């Protein structure tokens, strides 16, 4: 009787165990807690300019981007255009997305949602970008959709062997353009063959500090460009997520390849000295 009871008990426990295993589909205790609102940790730089790509240096020439001579020329032309009132190589002014890698400068707050098959990175800047980082073990697709955010495959790693993941390694490919690293207009190559690699992890001493070691491989560069970005978690219990609607109140009107400003009363204005008005050839001459 004792033997039968023991066997029955064991069978019951085995059944219970199987039930437990099946019912719990996602054990989020295995993943770092990345919930909440993440903001760009401001590097202590005087006058850094708008979100420089390398946060430890000022924007623009001070980035010392390892550009090829061809793309250094393009960058200089961008700076000259911006100095004269234009947008240069920066596409954000026309409400085109920043895309990767520049969006990870996080000009607006970021949210990270971790699920076993996909980690989502959401940043509402110019457009409500949703990066999908596929961690389901998939291969690179044969015919990937091209995008400003690219196509990302990631892998969670337990670097210290404690049974919990602590690093997310990501590779992103399959881009479209134009994309620039930052608002100064450092352009990525027009062939859009950029590859971006990231290692994302929480700081071990400060769980509200997130690191992103990012390396960009691009044909506009003479070598891979590696930067280290940091993000701080806002501790509000219910963070506010404002919508960023680029076309709303956008004072830049793009007609063909020319940019104009919109005056307060809704008329076109030049953006630079001596700029010609738009060609009105398709309007009836009598109405001028």
């Amino acid at each position, binding site marked *: 009787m004792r033997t039968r009871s023991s066997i029955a008990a064991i069978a019951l426990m085995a059944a219970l165990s199987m039930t437990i295993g099946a019912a719990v589909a996602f054990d989020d205790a295995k993943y770092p807690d990345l919930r909440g609102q993440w903001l760009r940790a401001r590097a202590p730089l005087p006058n850094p300019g708008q979100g420089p790509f390398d946060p430890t240096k000022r924007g623009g020439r001070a980035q010392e981007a390892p550009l090829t001579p061809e793309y250094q020329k393009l960058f200089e032309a961008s700076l000259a255009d911006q100095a004269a009132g234009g947008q240069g190589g920066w596409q954000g002014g026309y409400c085109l997305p920043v895309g990767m890698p520049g969006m990870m400068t996080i000009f607006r707050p970021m949210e990270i949602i971790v699920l076993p098959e996909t980690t989502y990175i959401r940043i509402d800047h110019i457009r409500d970008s949703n990066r999908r980082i596929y961690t389901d073990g998939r291969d690179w697709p044969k015919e990937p959709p091209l995008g400003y955010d690219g196509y990302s495959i990631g892998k969670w790693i337990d670097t210290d062997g404690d049974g919990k993941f602590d690093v997310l390694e990501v590779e992103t490919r399959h881009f479209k353009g134009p994309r620039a690293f930052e608002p100064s207009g450092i352009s990525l190559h027009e062939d859009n063959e950029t590859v971006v690699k990231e290692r994302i992890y929480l700081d071990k001493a400060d769980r509200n500090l997130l690191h992103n070691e990012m390396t960009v491989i691009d044909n506009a560069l003479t070598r891979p460009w590696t930067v280290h970005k940091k993000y701080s978690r806002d501790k509000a219990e219910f963070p506010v997520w404002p919508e960023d*609607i680029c076309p709303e109140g956008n004072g830049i009107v793009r007609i063909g390849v020319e940019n104009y400003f919109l005056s307060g009363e809704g008329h076109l204005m030049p953006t630079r000295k001596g700029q010609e008005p738009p060609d009105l050839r398709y309007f009836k001459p009598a109405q001028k």
Partner: protein
Amino acid sequence: MLGKSLLGAIAVTAALWMAADAAAADDSKYPNLKGQWVRARIPVPGGGQAPFDPTKPVGRGQQAPLTPEYQKIFEANLAEQATGGQGNWQGGRCLPVGMPGVMNLYRAMEIVVTPETTYFLIDHIRGSSRRIYTDGRDWPKLIEPGFDGYSIGKWIDEDGDGKYDVLEIETRALRLPRAYDPSGLPFHADGKTVVKERMYLDKTKPDTLYNEMTVIDNALTRPWSVKKTYSREGGAQPTWIEDVCAEGQALITVGKEEYFLSGDGYLMPSKKDQGPPNLKYFRQP
């Protein structure tokens, strides 16, 4: 020895139960909403761009219960669209559709369920990400209005089988300009719209999702209820396309006027006899 084995088995089972408690997200409690959702096409006479009520033709055929004042506004909008303008439809200017129109699903939708929040990701015009807070929070005292609004939801186990099957949502704090659909059906200028939704899978067809939606708005004579149907497609690894409105946008807004951009990059009128933009700020020859 048998006694020790039994004790060992008991200890192991107990440990497994504790681990189960530690697992914060038991997603078997929630319906499987993974994958790519698209608008289920219902053939209606007249066709047209996805109307708010999918069972009726677009435009006047919607028979929207508008007040006389807002019916007039709607008619003026239709007249403007007939002459080449956009009327009340803000999508042509790359402004978001917002709620409730975003749930017409002009593009595919992904639903991401976590215990505290359910996300609706719809990349149309700008890539909307609705957050439906299911963490039991109260309505905040102060809410910044948005095109997608602020949504609080509750999961309900209607049939008592231990699994949620309905998500009830209320959305407030919606800003303007918004329209129900591309025909330009207007909302009240007071911005006090409330949208209620009940979303649930079809019990016999798990790739069919319903959204019973009710709009309460002061431009209406009564609450307006519609039922939307979505189909799950795309397979195990669906393709997600970015919709970047500004890219290839041929509509140029200058002040209150809309113009077209020609294939060779010049401004063109969008309406018959439309005058060119005022160039008073440019040096004239």
